[in-house]
């Protein structure tokens, strides 16, 4: 993928905050309630036809960032551009176009489909709203979409509850593809599926990507899945992007100690028992006082790490890591 190609999506220094509920003390002191920094100064871009894997633990902000890109969360700072134009530009035509070109696939196909609509109704609604095909052609287009995602046409009249998890996730994909998008944000699309079904969906995604030239932001916690689907990978920890690079850079030469810790922890299908050292419990709820958010867990942390937030160190054209010692 030529790096010179203009990015389809550019996320620049984006912050997302969630306000905590207003407490009595807040009201008394007439101050605004505390905010949780769900995403802090996130910068990344996505080129056409590229898949970027966004990984991190629960609570790292990866889902929030994905949702912020689709304007499902307001952004507190920074800017998100799609095809060079701000997604916050309120022109109705532009917003309508964004809502067509950027689509989301959710983790849980049980809760992201309307339980009272059949597959044909779910897909037909989208096709009519965005006037993808003339009304007379909706039924044929639904049939075509079912073929594309590998569902038998007889499923068109099914309700979600009469389908398996894998089948529902295919409907979720068909719904996203119905409007012929350029960018898919997939939030843990296979996390709820059993491994044999997960493999079916991952292969389908690979096919769709080639067939339709889709760019994908693939949000997931499972590193083996991310390694399988991504061209590039971004790693998040506690709201910050701590490392970005090509798949090879992240999986072969990880520069951030957190990335290394994640990679080492992935269970492998080895034919022998692995002996791991017993460690003290990590309190993921503990507040971080300042400095690098990973410092309390980092085996290499020194005093500087607890005082100074590390800036992103550029390691190559495609590889960067937010660690004081990334370059060493």
């Amino acid at each position: 993928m030529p790096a010179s190609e203009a990015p389809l999506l550019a996320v620049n220094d984006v912050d997302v905050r969630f306000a905590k509920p207003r407490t009595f003390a807040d009201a008394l002191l007439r101050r605004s309630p505390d905010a949780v920094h769900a995403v802090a100064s996130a910068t990344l871009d996505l080129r056409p036809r590229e898949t970027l894997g966004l990984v991190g633990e629960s609570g790292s902000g990866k889902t929030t960032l994905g949702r912020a890109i689709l304007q499902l969360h307001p952004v507190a700072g920074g800017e998100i551009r799609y095809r060079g134009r701000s997604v916050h530009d309120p022109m109705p035509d532009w917003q309508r176009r964004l809502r067509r070109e950027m689509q989301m696939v959710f983790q849980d196909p049980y809760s992201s489909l309307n339980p009272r609509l059949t597959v044909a109704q779910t897909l037909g609604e989208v096709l009519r709203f965005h006037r993808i095909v003339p009304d007379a052609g909706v039924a044929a287009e639904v049939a075509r979409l079912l073929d594309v995602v590998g569902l038998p046409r007889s499923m068109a009249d099914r309700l979600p509850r009469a389908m398996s998890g894998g089948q529902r996730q295919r409907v979720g994909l068909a719904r996203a593809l119905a409007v012929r998008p350029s960018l898919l944000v997939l939030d843990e699309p296979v996390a709820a599926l059993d491994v044999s079904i997960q493999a079916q969906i991952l292969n389908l995604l690979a096919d769709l990507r080639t067939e339709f030239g889709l760019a994908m932001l693939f949000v997931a916690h499972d590193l083996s899945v991310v390694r399988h689907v991504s061209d590039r990978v971004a790693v998040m920890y506690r709201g910050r992007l701590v490392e970005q690079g090509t798949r090879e850079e992240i999986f072969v030469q990880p520069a951030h100690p957190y990335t290394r810790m994640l990679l080492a922890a992935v269970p492998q299908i080895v034919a022998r028992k692995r002996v791991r050292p017993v460690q003290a419990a990590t309190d993921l709820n503990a507040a971080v006082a300042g400095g690098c958010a990973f410092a309390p867990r980092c085996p290499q942390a020194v005093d500087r790490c607890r005082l100074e937030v590390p800036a992103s160190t550029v390691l190559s054209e495609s590889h960067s890591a937010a660690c004081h010692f990334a370059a060493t």
Partner: protein
Amino acid sequence: MSPGTRVDSPLDRPAAFPPEGAARREPLLQVRDLEITFQVRGGEVLANRGVSLDVAAGETLGLVGESGSGKSVLCRAVLRLLPSPPARTKRGRVLFDGIDLITLPEAKLREIRGTDIAMVFQNPMTSLSPVWPIGDQVTEGLRIHRGMTRSEARERGIALLQSIGIPEAARRYDDHPWQWSGGMLQRAVIAMAMACSPRLLLADEPTTALDVTIQEQILALLTDLQAKSGMAMVLVSHDIGVVAETCDRIAVMYAGMLVETGPAAAVFGRPRHPYTLGLMRSSPRMDAQAERLQPIPGQPPDLSKLAAGCPFADRCAFAKDECRHALVELREVAPGHASACLFPEAVH
């Protein structure tokens, strides 16, 4: 044993493992031909059909399979934790140290539950009461089963929390669950299970709700506790990586049946059931080139409409006509390694 010879399986001899002769002592847990059904509207779901397995003291058995395969039902059936109705134990025995838990009076069973046999569930948030201090919950078993006073239990509880890696255990003993992160809570649940020094620990997806780095910590802790105490452990997981790295022996479940059992090295080194092979091939690997995955085609069968023959036949690349009719059961393919496939040599 050549393929094709059939071992008739009276209660005590379905190709159990470890193989005859190798077993030097009675296994601690013996499950024999267990059949569990659930009454549902319009029929019955066969959740466990003819499950037989052994777990020896000091051994970790990994029970692996996809959702609905019956792994959790098996664990719960051992402790008789399934609600009845709808669950029914139709056949079979569960022997713990020679005592049949299926027929044991409830009062006697309560003496075994939580003391000799303990269980750890998937989600620590739902295994703990939100309104009680964590320490009191961890030591409840000590007060009830061991008759400890509150202060004795507290002293022991703090030591337990320390042993499972909770920093500042004395101060955090009185914390409530919301103050701890998921990984710490799962450690607390493990401490609770370990409180009465069980001889068998049933761990049902103990790390599924946790992040991968925390999962690693919990698996290390379980392995360490097991090695130190010499207890037997059954580790249930849908993740074959987790069981491969943690267990001595593996039992693969599909559609309520054990389809392959054996030493971990043998099962994952040379799988003899097409389902095991399918699970391995559909998992994305960290150590291989990211080529195309090989999913298992189709869906697991409807357990209320099981036909005769091998339940995997419809999804199997090696299936022949016989597979759809013949009785399938575990048969030994190598010492200690058994497969429920009619053609285990064809699996590759």
